[in-house]
Structures are given as C-alpha cells and as structure tokens.
C-alpha cells in the first residue's frame, strides 16, 4: 500500500489539492478506500486521517466501504422512474442475486442507485464503473452483465 500511494503522491504532489485526485486514483484501482489506504494517504500528505476520511465521505464516488470489482449505479431520477427504472433494478437483483446496496459473494459486482447521471434523454440508464449504458431494457441489462462476467 505504501509504495502504491508513493507513486500517486509523486504524480499528484503532496499538497492538499492532491488529496482528491489521489483518492480518485485509489478508488479507480481498488473500488474503495480502505482504512489502511486512508491512513497512508494522511501520513504522506501530512494531514490527519480524520481530514482524509471527512473529505472522502463527502463524495458519493469515493466509497469508504468495501465494493465489488464492478460498481453498478442505476440512475434514480424522476425521468428514470417514469421510463422503467424499477424493472431494471428488479432484473439486476435477479441476475446478480443481491439487493441494492449489496455486493456479490464473488466480489464481482456492487449494485447501487445514484442521482441523475446526465442521460435523461435515454432513460433508464446506469453506470458500470465509468461507462454509461442507456435506453436499458431487461434483455439489454442481462447481456451487459454477461459481458462483464466473461
């Protein structure tokens, strides 16, 4: 962990402005911020661990609880609701055999809901990690999940 974060502090620097880019890079790699990672970042940036946690916990994409390798975020805006978001959630819960908020036992997927992701013209929509998927149907969702399982 120490070495990994040293690489990041080399890249982004050690001042306060580097904090969020560093946390983002850790999440990109590990899906979430472990206590160990946050403590190490605090040490290397010379700020308190509470500062690191306090900042991270503000942002919904900087998860501080364990997440699966792939994070699914289904849009829950009013437009998504109107266009069949419920059906999409049901399908995802069925194929992944987990509920919203949970992670599959093989640690492959975490299923979450999120506020508007900027695709109201093509709802229902979801993000898997950084990739948006839009105009979703149940069949489409099953196909997408199968692709990620390969």
């Amino acid at each position, binding site marked *: 962990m120490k070495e990994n974060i040293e690489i990041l502090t080399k890249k982004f620097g050690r*001042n306060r402005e580097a904090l969020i880019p560093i*946390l983002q890079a850790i999440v990109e790699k590990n899906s979430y911020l472990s206590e160990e990672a946050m403590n190490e970042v605090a040490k290397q940036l010379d700020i308190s661990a509470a500062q690191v946690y306090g*900042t991270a916990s503000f942002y919904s994409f900087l998860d501080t609880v364990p997440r699966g390798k792939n994070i699914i975020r289904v849009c829950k805006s*009013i437009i998504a609701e*109107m266009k069949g978001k419920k059906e999409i959630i049901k399908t995802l819960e069925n194929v992944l055999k987990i509920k919203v908020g949970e992670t599959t036992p093989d640690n492959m997927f975490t299923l979450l809901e999120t506020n508007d992701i900027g695709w109201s*013209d093509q709802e229902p929509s979801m*993000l898997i990690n950084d990739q948006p998927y839009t105009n979703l149907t149940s069949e489409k969702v099953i196909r997408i999940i199968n692709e990620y399982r390969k």
Partner: protein
Amino acid sequence: MSSQNLKKTDMIFGLCHTTDVEHLLPGGVCKTNEEKFVVLEEVIKKDPQDIIDDIIESGLKGRGGAGFPTGLKWKFASLSPEKEKYVICNADEGEPGTFKDRDILLKVPAKVFAGMTMCGYCINAKKGYLYLRGEYKFMLPELRKVLDSFHEVIKKIGYDFHIDILLGSGAYVCGEETALMESMEGHRGEARNKPPYPTVEGFRNKPTVINNVETFVNVTMIQKFGVAEFKKLGTQDSRGSKVFSVSGDTPKPGVYELELGMKLSDFVDEYGDGDTKAVQVGGASGFCVPRKKFNETIIGFEGIPTGGSMMLFNSSRSMYNVLTNYLEFFAEESCGQCTPCRVGCQQLIRGIRAVKCGQKSPDYLDALLKLTASMKLTAKCGLGQSVANSFSSIVSNFTEEMIY
C-alpha cells in the same frame, strides 16, 4: 404538431465549417482548414477591454442557471491588479434533467476551450480548469486528445494559456461555484459565504471567473460572428439562443438549440405528447408550470430562466411522486452545512408524506410552504434556497394531488 413560432437555431453545435477550431474534432467534421484558429488569433490581438465591452454589449447572460451577465463578471475579474487569476469552466452538470453540456463537450469541445482561453486573455489569467462531473469520466480520453491539440495550437499562435481537466466525485452541490472551488482545493464541497464573490476571491482565494460550458461556447461564437449577429436572436432581456435538455413524456427527448424568449405553449406544441399536464422548467431546483399557464409563460430571463432542463409530464403522472423524488434528491445532496437546508429538506419529505397518508390535515401544507420560504431566505447557498421553487410551484398548482 410543429409550432411555427418556435425558432430553432444552430449557433452552438452548427456552422462548423466557419468556426475556427472545429477541425480539431475527431471524425474530421470540418474540411476547410484555411480559417482555422482565425478567431483566437484575431482575438488575442484586440484590446481585452474591447472584447469585454463586446460581451457586455451582446447581453450574454450565464447559461448555468443563475444568469449573471457574463461580460460584467469578466470585467470585475479583469479590474483586479492581482497577478494570479484563474478561469474555470463549470462542467458539473448535476441538475436533474440536464444533459446539454454532455453533448456540447462530446461534439464541440474545442469551442469551449477557445472560450476559456479568450477569458484568460481578457482577465489576464494563464491557467484554466475544466471541472468535469465524475459521471462524465467516460469522456476524458477524447477530451484530453482535443485539449492536447488545442494546446499545440495556442502555442503556435504564440499565446500562453494552459487548461487542466479535474474530475468531480459525485456531489451535486459541487456545481455551486464556491463549493466547486472548495472541492478543487481538496476539501469537502461545502459552499462558501458570498461575498466575497469568486471574481474577487475564488480558487486559491485569487480572482476567478467561473462560467458554464455553454457560456464559453457563446463567447467563442460572439467573437466569430459579431455582437450584431448574436443579438439578432432572443429578446431584450434574453439575448441569444439556448441549448435545452428535453426529457420525460415527449416523443423526441434530446438536446435542442432554441431561441430564448419562447412561449412555453409553443415549446409544448413542438415537444409535448399531446397530453402534457406540466413542465418542470430548470430541473429540480426550477419551477413547475401547469398546463393552464403554458400560454403566459416565457422561457428566458424575463420569465422563467433555466439552465436548460425541460421535463415534460403528461396526465398519467403523479405530481406527488415528482415532488418527493425532487425532495429526496435535495435531502441527499444537501451538504449539511447549514440548518435550514439540512433539517428543512428532511422535514419537507416527512411533512408531505404525512399529508398524503392523512396523518396531517391539508392545512399543514401551508406550514410547509412557510418553511420553504424561510429556507429561501436563510439557506447558505443556492441548493437550499431553491428548494422552495419546485416545492411551492408543485404544491400550489397540484394541491389535490398532494392530499388524495
């Protein structure tokens, strides 16, 4: 039915063969290279104050929602003798039902960078930042490519300006300009007190101009086509065109560029499904207009201003569901810094549910309306202040739906 009165325009996305930087776009949309960068090259020969006067004269107002006159904002920042200044492009686009900045950044990013560079020239800043919402991270590789060629171009014309892209991490309130700066400085995205305004103390406490993505494109187009051409569009109070995000019960959801100052009824004729009961103008923080007011409602700064979100609802929709969805959004996204907003959002949700299930009498709605009015007065930033907009416009126009 297509409305005769609605004027579709093509300033932001179109006219690519005559714009300066368009050929940078992947796919080679533009074939004519002779005119490339002429605008930027010409602009940096002008007197910065003349450019600012042009923008003031054009009447351009910010496209992010609040509608502050862009030229004045630049003027304030330009007047500061401070050596270190910044330009920020706000691409946080978190307002529910908004997605036009997504299309602008996907289709004409170079126009955005050009506008930022012109701003840098006018206020004497050497550094710009594009703050891109985390949800749009998928665009990053393409944006970086365009930005790299853009940097080469400004180097070639001998001008010194550098743009960096920073990513958000999923927080709506970070679209508020001072919260955005807190976030850029590595902190929780908690809004600051204003004044001081960012043009005086912004990023790193230095004079900063922050504008919406679309605003910067407008500046580029004004420089290209001239103030007179720009002023041909829109009305006295709302100059130019606007990019709208159209969603909900419409046969053609999408991004449309329309002249400002249109009547909502004309808009509904064009985009409605024939059964439109209400339009939410300006997203969750905007206003809900019921059918009976379509005719008298103007979309623009003289009527209802909007960052571009237009959500259409037909008569099959429950406005109670619409309102609770918005309230849950605000409650989740409130930064929690000030009590009126943190507690107010929660109380509104509880209150509206209590009325709906009969635990509270319908009179209780009046108490809730009073609460939103005091939130408008006492909340620290635009998030808490604007909850009243959708709450009061939905509750007062669809009272029965809130009760039964």
